[in-house]
């Protein structure tokens, strides 16, 4: 990759702009039962969903804040807006999207990416998905790709069978919060044997100050089917905090494969607290590619439960912690069935006082004999002010398993940069190249367009750090 520095704002977050608000509905700040009833009523949901929400709200109130991981004491739940509907429609054509919002997504490059290489797109703005598309031929094959709220209304039986079956409300405080106030997200169903060649993408944009975004994603990959789902996200830069707390549940049935790629680039005033878990049945493969570049605090550990024999789970995690950021990321794998395999690869970069933590859990249940797992976590520290920690929890209850764990910490050395500079590269080019090389095991797994984007983002971050 050749650095392109010509038209780059040095080290600045590019997506910090915001639009003027013109909401259809904006429920007052703070959370109580009435807010939840209002959300459910606006959506015209069946009663069971309202009951589900209210039950989850009780669980949210009853659970203490996590006392491990990142510092969450700055979250003021009373100051957050829990529901904001930006427009009346969920358009199938960009022409029907209000201009302000459409322009924002154009700046983010979504319609262009859609034309070039995507099978379908969902675009969420604040609490609601305002645009959705799926190629006609995919629709004809029985693939469902729609906003989760719409799926509840239009495919209630299918929805109810799987919703909250993988991540119950009580899983943790933030899954309970999401369950109480969820809105938007993607619902995907891929019928048996159908393989979607191009990725489906969802984009999540927060616009308002102190916004809370709580999308809920549910993906069902039926037997022998394949989907690659990609999500991106950004938000304006404000002086006070926003909250993003999603729940993503995935079921990959026998012989199916799902790849879920995230490029998280929230502005540095967003708390990003996300619960993601997939269940892989017999011979199924689940792959999480999880890139965390933005946010103030991220706590996110994509999980795979290897439930069927020979299921395979893979988690590639990359975290970039800059000034004022704490990325507490990693992955969790539970081997339930025999002869299951998993790989966790984590790469983190800390600079300008940023902190990144790898937190991983590998569990091999008693019956999961013959399972294999490999965990590799590498941390790169750019300067002495920054910090990295590793918390690898391993719990093996089965015999005859093959488990490997490696961890390295390296510092971006003055001498290594000097070596590259002695070949003619500038200091910024040299450090960006070292970092790009460090994350190459992850970027090589991304579709080209995203790999280029990720490298460009890293380059931007590095431009700001030397001088």
């Amino acid at each position, binding site marked *: 990759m050749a650095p392109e520095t010509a038209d780059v704002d040095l080290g600045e977050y590019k997506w910090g702009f915001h639009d003027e608000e013109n909401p259809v509905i904006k429920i007052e700040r703070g959370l109580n039962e009435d807010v939840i009833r209002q959300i459910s009523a606006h959506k015209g949901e069946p009663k069971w969903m309202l009951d589900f929400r209210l039950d989850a709200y009780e669980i949210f109130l009853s659970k203490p804040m996590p006392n491990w991981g990142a510092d969450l004491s700055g979250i003021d739940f009373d100051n957050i807006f829990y529901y904001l509907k930006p427009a009346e429609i969920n358009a199938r054509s960009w022409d029907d999207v209000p201009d302000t919002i459409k322009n924002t997504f154009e700046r983010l490059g979504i319609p262009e990416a859609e034309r070039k290489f995507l099978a379908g797109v969902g675009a969420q703005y604040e609490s609601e998905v305002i645009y959705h598309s799926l190629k006609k031929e995919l629709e004809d094959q029985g693939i469902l790709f729609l906003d989760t709220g719409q799926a509840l209304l239009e495919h209630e039986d299918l929805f109810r069978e799987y919703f909250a079956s993988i991540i119950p409300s009580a899983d943790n405080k933030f899954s309970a919060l999401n369950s109480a106030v969820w809105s938007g997200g993607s619902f995907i169903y891929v019928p048996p044997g159908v393989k979607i060649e191009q990725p489906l993408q969802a984009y999540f944009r927060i616009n308002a100050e102190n916004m809370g975004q709580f999308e809920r994603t549910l993906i069902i990959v039926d037997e022998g089917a394949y989907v690659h789902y990609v999500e991106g996200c950004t938000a304006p830069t404000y002086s006070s905090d926003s909250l993003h707390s999603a729940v993503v549940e995935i079921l990959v049935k026998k012989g199916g494969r799902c790849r879920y790629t995230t490029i998280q680039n929230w502005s540095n005033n967003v708390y990003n607290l996300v619960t993601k878990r997939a269940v892989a049945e017999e011979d199924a493969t689940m792959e999480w590619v999880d890139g965390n570049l933005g946010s103030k605090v991220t706590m996110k550990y994509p999980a795979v439960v290897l439930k069927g024999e020979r299921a395979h789970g893979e988690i590639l995690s990359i975290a970039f912690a800059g000034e004022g950021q704490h990325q507490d990321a990693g992955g969790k794998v539970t081997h339930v069935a025999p002869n299951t395999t998993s790989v966790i690869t984590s790469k983190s970069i800390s600079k300008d006082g940023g902190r990144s933590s790898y937190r991983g859990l590998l569990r091999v249940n008693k019956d999961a004999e013959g399972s294999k797992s490999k965990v590799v976590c590498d941390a790169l520290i750019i300067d002495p002010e920054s910090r990295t920690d590793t918390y690898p929890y391993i719990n093996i209850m089965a015999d005859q398993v093959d488990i490997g764990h490696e961890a390295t910490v390296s510092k971006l050395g003055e*001498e290594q940069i*000097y070596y590259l500079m002695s070949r*003619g*590269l500038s200091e910024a080019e040299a450090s960006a*190249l070292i970092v790009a090389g460090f994350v190459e*095991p992850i970027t090589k797994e991304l579709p080209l367009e995203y790999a280029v984007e990720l490298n460009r983002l890293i380059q931007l971050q590095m431009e700001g750090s030397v001088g």
Partner: protein
Amino acid sequence: MPDLVIRNLHANITGTDTEILKGIDLQMSKGEIHAIMGPNGSGKSTLSHVLMGHPGYEVTEGEVLFEGANLLDLAADERSRAGLFLSFQYPFAVPGVTVANFIRMAVNAHRKGGPDGVDNPVRIPEFRKQIQEAMELLEIDKSMASRSLNDGFSGGEKKRFEILQMAMLQPKIAILDETDSGLDIDALRIVSDGINRLVGPNMGTLIITHYQRILDYVKPDQIHVLMDGRIVRSGGAELAHELETSGYADIAKEVVS
């Protein structure tokens, strides 16, 4: 004026009073082969890094002119683009960056801001041809080009790749810091052949070495003996053999008396 002029060069380890170079004078031009020999700790490697711009050393006195311009004002990357090259004794690994991609970036860095300020990146087929020729010259297997730079390379492989980079960047003056150390006799011959082919009217080289072994293959025009931060003797190729038989200790005595 010679292409490289070093005058009364003094240098410390950055941030300390530890003086390593205590007044070096040396002149050389393209087309010439000079060798600097000296015992361990005499300041040989320091001299090479001070010339290249290592941040761990600071120049306290003296000057270095490269084609008439003040070299010490330039950062390491600018010195490289001006035509200076250093083959490192201990090259660094860059995992995840292939040899070919890295060298192409370096070549393009040298082609940035041409005469009219326009970048002139090398065309890929042209680059591929050049690097293949250079790899053949150094008897490097083609498949090595797609490996990560210096990552898991043996000591001898790293040295060959340093010379490969030299061949691709075509410097005016190349400093070879202990390029012969860690090479077996076959590798030494291959690397030396490579150096001999590259040195010519457009390139000179300053070979820094502890042993005269490499000088049997690459014939120096001049040899300088460096001891305790100063050049204590200079002479022709015969000086190497004198050192080989009598050792640095005799010279040290001579210098003291």
